[in-house]
């Protein structure tokens, strides 16, 4: 069975930015609540295509992925649930770093 895919630029926003919901409509928290938390709760794997956006700020990435750990999911579960797809390997490494240090946002 093929894994469901979320393309950030297509399914969320080409302009991801900000940390919390009150920051703006395409924040990390908005992305986490819309795509990451449902997948984690339902224990279904999800591929996330990261390319195609204007770029990513660390606030967005940290709140989306590190925030999933703070919500209560273990780092290894978060890592196993999501397959990160990008030509930019440093971006994937960065997200893994946020997942590992998710309980310590600052």
């Amino acid at each position: 069975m093929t894994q469901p895919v979320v393309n950030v630029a297509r399914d969320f926003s080409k302009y991801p930015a900000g940390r919390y919901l009150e920051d703006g409509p395409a924040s990390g928290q908005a992305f986490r609540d819309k795509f990451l938390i449902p997948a984690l709760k339902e224990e279904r794997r999800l591929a996330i295509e990261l390319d195609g956006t204007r770029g990513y700020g660390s606030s967005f990435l940290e709140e989306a992925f590190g925030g999933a750990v703070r919500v209560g999911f273990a780092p290894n579960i978060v890592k196993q649930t999501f397959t990160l797809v990008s030509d930019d390997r440093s971006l994937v490494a960065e997200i893994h770093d946020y997942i590992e240090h998710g309980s310590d946002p600052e």
Partner: protein
Amino acid sequence: MKKLTPYARTRQIRLARKHLCRIRKKKILRSKRIKFREIFAVLKAPDIFTISSKDNRRSLLRFLGKLRETIVLHKHAVRIDFSGTQKMFADGTLLFYAELSRIKRLKGSVEIRCFPPRNDKVAQVLKQVGIFDLVGYRKKIETTHDDVIHWRSANGHEVIGEKFDEVLGHYDGQIAEALSKNLYLGFTEAMTNCHHHAYIDVRPDGLNVMQEPKEWWMFSQERDGLLTVVFCDLGIGIPGTLPIKKPTLWQRVQSFGSKLDAHAIQEAIGESRTRTGLHHRGKGLRQLVDVIAKVDGGQVNIFSNRGRFTLKSDSESISQFKDDIYGTLIIWQVPIRRLSDDSTRG
């Protein structure tokens, strides 16, 4: 005395009436002028708009202080006299634009007008960035200067990535994708920082305004193959944020004794680097600096309150000014290639 004919008499009366009318009109005009002088305080704009050099910075900041005081505190109408203005650099112009927008929001019904500049290029800049609109000057001005055409501006009070394309979208193809992504990162993180930290207390500019919108302003300008992107907020500045958000760090900064604001910026940047221990890129303020870290000929300046932090060719420096900008202003400068360069190569 010779007796006037009836015709000559009527003519003399008519002429006398005309003369009287003229005198009355002159009187009315004079009283109107006096009244106008009383209504509008004329504030002379500085000759050069910049915050990067000591003397020009002082003139600009004194002018901005007078503008805030006259319009917002004294509720007195102002006519800004641009007649002597000769040069407008992106940093000083953005700070002025931001202050003027804020003053417009706070002024109520107080009027702001202007005397236009004699310098044609300055007039084009004022038109292009929207300052003439803020002071109600509606004369049609055509933008012809190459480096004025490329000025773009945006502002907002949320973290909205789409705003990036308003000011930098048309450079697609002229700047490398990696640099474009880095600039996007710097821009969105600057907006996020502004939203989270800049307006957490009252701006100490004497106006005592509570509950301000978390506004930011941005310019981009291309000149001589150099792309300049300037971002600013009118919050409490990094040295104002540290005692509230990072008291331990602020204690360390105070131990330096002098150049407090400049050290505060440098330490806040340093802390955001060491805090994460990440090898790929920093967090928070560090990201704003890392935007140009790998760009040959790139430079970043962060002005906050009285301090300044510069990173150029991997070398950091700080400096302290006497006058306070009451906010934070970031300038990224990167060399770009022009599309015309490619087309001439065939």
